[in-house]
């Protein structure tokens, strides 16, 4: 039997670790070789669920013969954990946002380069079938040249460390801007130049930005707006919402990445909910990472892509604080 690619999961602090682990289980030539989590209760529970070994300290997990690790710690920890993993020669998949500041992102990218490993950002939307189809249509010229994009990434407010800016790097502007800023940069094929943002703690009273509109401009003149608000209340029928209205010289694409749903009315529980019938993108993301681990190829969505998407969120916070447009500070690598 062919040997399986050994992947470690570092932390379930970010709940996406769960869906990534499930996706790993569906890939024949990959296995979860260990789970590290500083939270012993959560870690042992997950290790039991996925039938693998538990490590309290991630550095111990990094000493084993893994090929790659999935980093789902809090955002602040991405840097330290990724650099340590890179130094141990492991390929790294980092949950988004890639990092919480430019300096950390540079360290992570440099560590990857120095150790000749690949670092990849967990942007599952890049593997969403609607998004992939949109990219294909755009590249085929079906809507002509892109003129502007209006994006919405609404969702419910998360809990725990997500609401602590020292661990999360910010609120909704950090959490939700990056998905769309990555996709838009990929579609437009140009770098970000200018950012304006209005945001604030408006809806949920959790002392962190939960509402935000980010207006951006690319080097090539295309403009876009990103609504990154945690705008959905608890009884909203679906999570999340990732929409883009792409205006081109020959037509318009309306992309609703997570709208392939059906509605369930449960009379017993008195609930109404929409459930997705299509795979969101997690599976493709994990498959790609396993491929990277197997072959050492450049990932379809890189660490640098993650860093570039993060730059927009950082600029947005600067803009909101100063009440003016700011030039995007680009990572030096």
């Amino acid at each position, binding site marked *: 039997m062919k040997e399986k690619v050994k992947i470690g999961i570092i932390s379930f602090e970010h709940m996406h670790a769960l869906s990534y682990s499930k996706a790993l289980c569906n890939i024949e030539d990959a296995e979860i070789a260990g789970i590290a989590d500083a939270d012993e209760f959560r870690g042992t529970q997950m290790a039991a669920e996925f039938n693998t070994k538990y490590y309290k300290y991630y550095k111990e997990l990094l000493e084993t013969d893994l090929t790659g690790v999935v980093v789902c710690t809090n955002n602040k920890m991405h840097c330290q954990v990724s650099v340590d993993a890179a130094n141990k020669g492991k390929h790294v998949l980092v949950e988004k946002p890639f990092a919480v500041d430019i300096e950390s992102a540079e360290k992570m990218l440099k560590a990857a380069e120095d150790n000749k490993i690949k670092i990849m950002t967990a942007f599952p939307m890049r593997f969403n079938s609607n998004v992939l189809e949109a990219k294909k249509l755009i590249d085929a010229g079906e809507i002509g040249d892109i*003129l*502007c994009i*209006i994006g*919405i990434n609404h969702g419910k407010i998360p809990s725990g460390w997500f609401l602590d800016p020292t661990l999360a790097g910010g609120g909704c502007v950090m959490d939700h801007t990056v998905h769309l800023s990555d996709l838009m940069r990929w579609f437009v094929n140009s770098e970000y130049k*200018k950012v*304006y943002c*209005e*945001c*604030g703690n*408006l*809806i*949920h*009273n959790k002392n962190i930005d939960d*509402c*935000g*509109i980010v*207006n951006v*401009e690319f080097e090539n*003149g295309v*403009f876009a*707006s990103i*609504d990154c*608000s945690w*705008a*959905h*209340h608890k009884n*909203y029928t679906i999570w999340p919402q990732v929409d883009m209205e792409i*205006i081109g*010289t*020959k*037509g*318009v694409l309306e992309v609703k990445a997570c709208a392939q749903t059906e509605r369930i009315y449960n009379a017993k529980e008195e609930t109404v909910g929409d459930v997705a019938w299509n795979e969101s993108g997690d599976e493709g993301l994990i498959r790609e990472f396993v491929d990277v681990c197997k072959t050492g190829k450049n990932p379809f969505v890189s660490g640098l892509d993650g860093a570039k998407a993060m730059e927009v969120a950082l600029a947005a916070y600067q803009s909101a604080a100063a*009440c*003016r*447009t700011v030039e995007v500070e680009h990572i030096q690598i």
Partner: protein
Amino acid sequence: MVNVALIGCGTMGRTHANSYKNINNANLIGVCDINMEKAQSIAKISGSHVYLKFEEMLENENIDVVDICIPTYMHKEYALTSMEARKHVFCEKPIALTLKDANEMVRFSEKMSVKFTVGHVVRYFPAYKRAVDAVGQGEIGIPKLIRTTRNQGFPKWSWEGWYMDYEKSGGPILDLIIHDFDWINYYFGDVERVYAQSLNGKAKEQDHCVATLRLKNGAIAHVEGSWAYPEGSVFRTTFEVVGTNGQIEFDSLKSCGIEKQINNGHHITSYLSPTAHSMEPYQAELREFINCVEADTKVSVSGSEAVKALQVALAAIESSLTGRPVTLKNYIH
């Protein structure tokens, strides 16, 4: 009975003429247009007298109200002339192209003691009214994030192409999304500052604009308007109001009552959303004005409210041209 004379027998003129037919205390006694054919076809609706010259129509002493349905750049001239002749004035939106002109119209109506209103008809659209009612009843808590869209193709149909001449129409920011500026301004709060992006003539026969508004009460609004959709696109409006306790969503295409599919060489889908007689918005705004004239009460949409909406639109235009946010000055009239 209130006697009305209408100037401008285009699309809006026809809409208004049809509305008067259903307003018991209004009598459309005269219609005026430089195009005899158009004037005659609208005069037929209520058996009105046809005038080719506005001055001649004004000489008719029986006229109480002049209804102005001509292009924006002519509003001031015809409004002032009507007020001079002591006629009450209903003026289509937007009030004018400049604050100076708009303020002059408001001041002159006060000086001549005539009633003056502007057709900010979105306030009368049933779906928009229903949302405002729900907000008023506290169904979603305090409104904090408002998104509106108003999208269509390039308005090539207009007389002498005046919509396409921004010197005459102000473009989509001033002509189209001023509807939403008024709605937001009036029901959700005064605007503190505006940041806007627009194609501003960069693309041939296409324009698309977004404006981010920060209201004085802290709420954020994202207002989108398009003249960039392909020719033949269905006119579509949406809104979303997110409050501290819930949210309201509306999409004109998703909540219309009839979807019509026909094939006359090309397959065409169209969407119809007929409203109950009592809820027809153009009729409602005109009826309300006629009642105000008859009972000598305060108008619902005051001239100074129209000036406010204009001020937001002009700030948005300025922002889209300079690339900087514009803080609104305390408006004076």
